[in-house]
């Protein structure tokens, strides 16, 4: 169990008021708030140890380099990677997925196939779509079931000997539904490709890694992408995990300083993992803050975090279902298969109008297509309201949202 009242004391922003009302922050799926421990770690780093990494061998350079490398090691432990060299720091999940799509596509042949699902965030859709266009690859879309998870039977029919990679979300940022990655990995890896290997699996963990224990060895995914800012850490730093043997064979994505072995006028050899994929001066303070966020989550225990959110998801769904004019998208609560992200609409009132009124009550939720237009098109709605919870969220905050819906009805009904 989480002691939410104690946790809330660590988040200074939760003390502020919005339009004269206490802030009720139900938009953590977009970005989480930050505990004092993370803010302090960044301030401490800049106050005591900042210098560029892997360059000067002076004292500050040593300290900054150590802190940056330690953050890779910490991240590797957090997701149970076999080596810290399998952890590449990027700017966010989007950049991780772009790195993967750009780099892998260069190694694919014309006519090779990529599969993504209907419910992907644009960041796991557009890079593959664009790389497919550039390299003459075929992009296929696996449909989802009415429960909001990937249709495994459909996935099996789409896989061919030309399918090089399947890239899917772990947890939907619109529906909150969780895919069974382990089972999908087994299906994908059993599919033999014409080069004698098998199809690879990339997982978008932006919505799962912050909320549940994710063990890459247990899931057996080949790649995993996620962002610090959705898991209590700072913006501007994200992670691409990849199995070492695969990363070794992939060409670099960005070129420049810090990622090379030796450079001559005509040729360049590239450095060791993960530096081969981290050109230029990286976000060192971001890595330090991210490591502090991982420590904060470890102290809470990821199973406790997940259980807390399961409880909130069940509660929010039950309360919303009592509202006759509320339509919930993927309304079922299945324990273990549903995170605390709920998308809904209120009668025919536009989602933006709903959140305008909620904002007046100090309630922050998201409205829109949540960067998942192919999914919303298939749901037949232009926009939904989305509430999302995290470690600091209480049932009382969900009650306040439900109460505020009456004000929306009064204005727009």
């Amino acid at each position, binding site marked *: 169990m989480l002691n939410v009242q104690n946790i809330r004391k660590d988040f200074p922003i939760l003390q502020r008021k919005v339009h004269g009302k206490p802030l009720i922050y139900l938009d953590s799926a977009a970005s989480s708030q930050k505990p004092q421990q993370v803010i302090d770690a960044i301030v401490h780093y800049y106050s005591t140890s900042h210098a560029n990494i892997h360059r000067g061998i002076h004292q500050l350079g040593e300290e900054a380099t150590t802190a940056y490398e330690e953050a890779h090691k910490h991240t590797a432990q957090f997701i149970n990677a076999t080596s810290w060299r399998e952890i590449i720091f990027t700017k966010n999940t989007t950049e991780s997925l772009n790195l993967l799509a750009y780099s892998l596509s260069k190694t694919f042949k014309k006519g090779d196939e990529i599969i993504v699902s209907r419910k992907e965030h644009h960041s796991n859709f557009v890079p593959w779509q664009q790389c497919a266009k550039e390299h003459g690859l075929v992009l296929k879309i696996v449909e989802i079931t009415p429960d909001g998870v990937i249709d495994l039977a459909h996935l099996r029919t789409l896989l061919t000997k030309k399918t090089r990679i399947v890239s899917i979300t772990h947890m939907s940022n619109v529906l909150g539904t969780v895919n069974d990655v382990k089972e999908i990995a087994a299906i994908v890896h059993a599919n033999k490709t014409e080069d004698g290997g098998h199809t690879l699996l990339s997982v978008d963990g932006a919505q799962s890694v912050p909320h549940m224990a994710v063990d890459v060895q247990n899931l057996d995914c080949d790649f995993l992408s996620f962002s610090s800012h959705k898991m209590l850490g700072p913006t501007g730093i994200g992670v691409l995990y990849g199995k070492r043997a695969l990363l070794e064979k992939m060409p670099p994505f960005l070129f420049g300083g810090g990622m090379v072995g030796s450079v001559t006028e005509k040729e360049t050899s590239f450095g060791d993992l993960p530096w081969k994929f981290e050109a230029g001066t990286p976000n060192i303070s971001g890595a330090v803050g991210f490591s502090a966020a991982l420590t904060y989550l470890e102290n809470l225990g990821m199973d406790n975090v997940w259980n807390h959110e399961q409880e909130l998801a069940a509660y929010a769904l039950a309360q919303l279902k009592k509202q006759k004019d509320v339509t919930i998208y993927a309304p079922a609560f299945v324990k273990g298969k549903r995170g605390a992200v709920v998308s809904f609409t209120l009668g025919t009132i*536009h*989602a*933006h*109008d709903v959140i*305008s*009124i909620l*904002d*007046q009550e100090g309630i922050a939720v998201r*409205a*829109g*297509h949540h960067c998942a*237009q192919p999914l*919303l098109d298939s749901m037949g709605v*232009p*926009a939904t309201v989305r509430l999302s919870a995290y470690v600091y969220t209480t049932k009382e905050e969900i009650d306040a949202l439900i109460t505020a819906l009456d004000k929306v009805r009064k*204005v*727009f009904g």
Partner: protein
Amino acid sequence: MSFDTYSMEIILDHYKNPHNKGKVAHVDLLNREKNPSCGDEIEVSATLDTEQKIREIKFDGHGCAISLASISMLTDELKGKSFQEIMKMEKQDVLALLGIDVAPLRIKCVMLGLRVLQRSILKHEGKDAQGISLSEI
């Protein structure tokens, strides 16, 4: 943005009972576009008179109260206006019609209808409609 002012009542009235909803019988100008950031979609159609001014103008589509009220009010306002007058209109003109100030992120809702109309004029004149952005703030 407060929802209990007199201006807001007028906005809500336009939203619930829009003026000039539908499509004109004789189409000289026609444009339908989506605000990529929120999915709101507005179609504007207009008939021109012999001086190339707006004789009749109607709109259709779906969106939030602010975007639909804005275009509803604009269609009342724009009859008899020339292309030049319409192309010169900016956000302060639409905000003046609405009588409210909106949060920066909602300016695109305010401006969607006008921008769709302005882009229809650019298209009509054979110019590049991309010169006007739909998603400005």
